[in-house]
């Protein structure tokens, strides 16, 4: 037995990942849309491709679907090389932003569209369609036409159509962006629980960080055709790997600082205690989330407390986005303060207050 054979047997012992992308490049003429994408998606996982428009996330999804062809690189689906296969020979269901329901076919005919071609009996098709319509919460809509449903309902039907043939992979291309805000929030939880119930490996493209954070098992943050970071939503938010990720996911205050000694970070005139500051003499750009600057609880004798004055209050509902200036700080800071706190303390523009900086949450990148 050859070594290669033995290795193959060894990997067979454990099921291959749902999807393995390696060395994916995509060129559109002189434009390098995707650069050396390496990614593994596990079985049953919900992965979000998150990034600004033009970052290559949709291109990557279309390459996985075979709707675009990568310039180079390989794609394995459940261990099978699908790099060169046409879409019809791959195993996936897809939902587009536009729903792409066939307008002249009824809802039932739309959902059954892929089943009809598989020599499934008429009775089985009807049973399966009813089951799917129930699954997406629209059990009685089979006889209607797509134009008679709302956008959210149409997207549920598109989802039912995509999973009708029980594909091994579900691809969602910005499925929620065409919906209004309320419907979007409702549907994202529905999609997520459906995905968990079916255990179907899912990749969703989105530019909406909130969507990605609330739905995904893992997020792939992309920018300029490169993967910036892969991680769980909490990792992406709390431990962003690059300035781009901090900026793109959540809000952050950016402050220029200098590590003056081990455990000491100088920001303007202030020197803060900071356990992760180890390289003395290094100038750093620090990123600080608004919620990591807190107004309470602050005990007497707490370190890293600053005096600040309120410059501007932006009312957002239960929370307010408050801009404060602290004497001796390199720039103004943005913090979240609850509406109740502001009214209890009778704080308004011009008021002074104490704020504590949670320095263990600081992220630093070389300036």
């Amino acid at each position, binding site marked *: 037995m050859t070594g290669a054979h033995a290795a193959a047997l060894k990997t067979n012992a454990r099921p291959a990942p749902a999807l393995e992308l390696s060395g994916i490049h995509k060129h559109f003429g002189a434009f390098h849309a995707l650069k050396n994408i390496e990614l593994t998606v596990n079985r049953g996982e919900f992965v979000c491709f998150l990034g600004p428009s033009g970052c290559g996330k949709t291109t990557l999804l279309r390459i996985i679907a075979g709707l675009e062809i990568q*310039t180079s690189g390989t794609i394995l689906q459940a261990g099978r090389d699908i790099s060169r296969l046409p*879409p019809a020979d791959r195993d996936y269901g*897809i939902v587009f932003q536009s729903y*792409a329901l066939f307008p*002249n076919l009824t809802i039932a005919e739309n959902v059954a569209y892929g089943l009809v071609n598989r020599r499934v009996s008429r009775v089985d098709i009807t049973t399966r369609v009813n089951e799917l319509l129930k699954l997406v919460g629209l059990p009685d809509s089979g006889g209607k*036409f797509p134009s008679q449903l709302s956008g959210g309902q149409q997207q549920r039907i598109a989802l039912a159509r995509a999973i009708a043939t029980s594909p091994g992979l579900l691809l969602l291309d910005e499925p929620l962006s065409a919906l209004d805000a309320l419907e979007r929030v409702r549907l994202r939880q529905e999609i997520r629980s459906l995905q968990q119930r079916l255990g179907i490996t899912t990749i969703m493209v989105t530019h909406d960080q909130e969507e990605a954070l609330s739905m995904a098992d893992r997020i792939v943050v992309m920018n300029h055709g*490169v993967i910036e970071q892969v991680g769980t939503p909490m990792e992406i938010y709390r431990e962003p790997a690059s300035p781009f990720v901090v900026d793109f996911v959540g809000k952050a205050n950016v402050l220029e600082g200098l590590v003056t000694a081990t455990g000491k970070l100088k920001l303007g005139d202030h020197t803060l205690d900071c356990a992760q500051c180890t390289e003395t003499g290094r100038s750093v750009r620090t990123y600080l989330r608004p919620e990591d600057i807190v107004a309470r609880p602050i005990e007497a004798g707490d370190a890293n407390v600053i005096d600040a004055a309120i410059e501007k209050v932006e009312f957002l509902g239960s929370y307010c986005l408050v801009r404060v200036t602290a004497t001796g700080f390199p720039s103004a800071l943005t913090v979240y303060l609850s509406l109740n706190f502001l009214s209890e303390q009778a704080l308004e523009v011009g008021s002074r207050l104490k704020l504590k900086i949670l320095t263990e949450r600081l992220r630093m990148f070389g300036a």
Partner: protein
Amino acid sequence: MNPARGPHSLALPPAAVTTQRVHWTDRIGHLALLLIALALVVFLAAPLTAILTQSVEGKDGAFVGLDNFITYAQTPALKQSVWNSLWVSAVVTVIAVPAAFVFAYALTRSCMPFKGLFRTITLTPLLAPSLLSAISFIYWFGNQGVLKDAMHSLGVASIYGAPGIIVSEIFSVFPHALMILVTALSLADARLYEAANAMGTSSSRKFFTITLPGAKYGLISAAMVTFTLVMTDFGIPKVIGGNFNVLATDIFKLVIGQQDFQRGAVVGLILLAPALLTFFVNRSVQRKQTSMLTARAVPYSPSPSRGYDAVMTMYCILVALLMFAVLGMAIFASFVKFWPYDLSMSLRHYVFGLVDGEVGDAFINSLKLASGTAVLGTGIVFVGAYLIEKTRGMQAVRPLIQLLALTPMAVPGLVLGLGYIFFFNYPGNPLNGLYHTLTLLVMCTIVHFYTTGHLTAVTALKALDAEFESVSASLKVPFFKTFWRVTLPICTPALLDIARYFFINAMTTISAVVFLYSPETKVAAIAILNLDEAGDIGPAAAMAVLIAAGSTVATLLFMVLGWLVNRHTQAWRRPAAS
């Protein structure tokens, strides 16, 4: 880590680019694409190339460079024709475009009553061959015309020649200019007028600062199209031109009369020039026109104004009456027993002139040609547009098809027909057997009117979700099944539009087929020319009326068909009953 594989490396595309395997169902699409490309090459590119080669060959087939052009330029009679064609076309443009503009303005920017009726009346000339107006004007102002003396008192000695060509052409190009201008004037953004009103702008200032600039491109386009239509029209100058020579009649005399293919090719190329210019100006104009109107624009709706609406109505009634006078005279004269001596009604011209003269067969041929063109043409055009718009692969062939699909718009029928003679009449051509057959007439007519059909199909297809095909592929449904179940049913209204367009144009066209018929395949529009030439103007009028009647019946049938089909295939467009 190998630096070349780092995520930020500026790697160049590798030499071996990954290619996708082709699914067997997609190969069917590729084959169809190739067939369409082949058909367009054989029936369009090759004939046009034949004109180019003829124009630089001597009678013995040897290459003579530009000798034919030089000889042509030294022939005073032919130079006179160039000048005649140019000035007549210019005069028609200067009169017809402003007249059509006012009419279009009344239709789009006034609260005049009966707009639909006015619009229908002014589009009727499209249902008959253009030379119907020439026949009618002969009855009005010809040697035995009703109003000959009135014309003389205006200082016009004879209708035969430039005066006749000009009035007949104005009548026949009017609907073409009108359609373009109505489209241009409908594209108005009400917000601009509201803003102007808010600033207290006078009506005339609004017209010159908003309306006219907005319709600028439409006006340019209408003028170019009118000029080219007149320049390349053959029927009208043939019937009413008398001894007044223009390029379009020269080409016929040179090729059919004198069998001088080389000089015919030279004239053909000269006629191609304004058509090509029009084509390119139109393309750039259309791009600018559409970009002027954003998706957020609010459609303009006129508000009533009694005096102004009354003036507009009067003008439109006047134009409609003139249209009736022209159309009505042809119909009247076709039933008159013996013009101008016995004005009693009879079917003499229809019975003796057409049926006994065996020209009735020509009408049957016309119906065959029109049906063949409508069925085959709609099929080819729609499948071609579908394959271009909605399928993948065969990237090398696609630009060729796109170019060839747009080319017919830039080629006058007369030039296309000339190319067909040169190419299909060439003894060495294996397709020589097609010459003089109805099949070739059908193919020529399809190609002649290809572009409009193609653009209609493309517009309908572009309105469909671009992801239908992707979804089908992901569901493992072959593209042709989705084409049949989804694309085709949704596009049936567009298909009927294309079929009707082909049918009507095949009924009325003369220019391309005039070179290609044999006695057995002569069509009705050509029969009019022959009858007129033989002095049988009564039967000629009868034939023209018969064509117009046939086109009208066909239009009505298409409307009924459209209604039936819509009920069947477009149910999904209606809101829910419950």
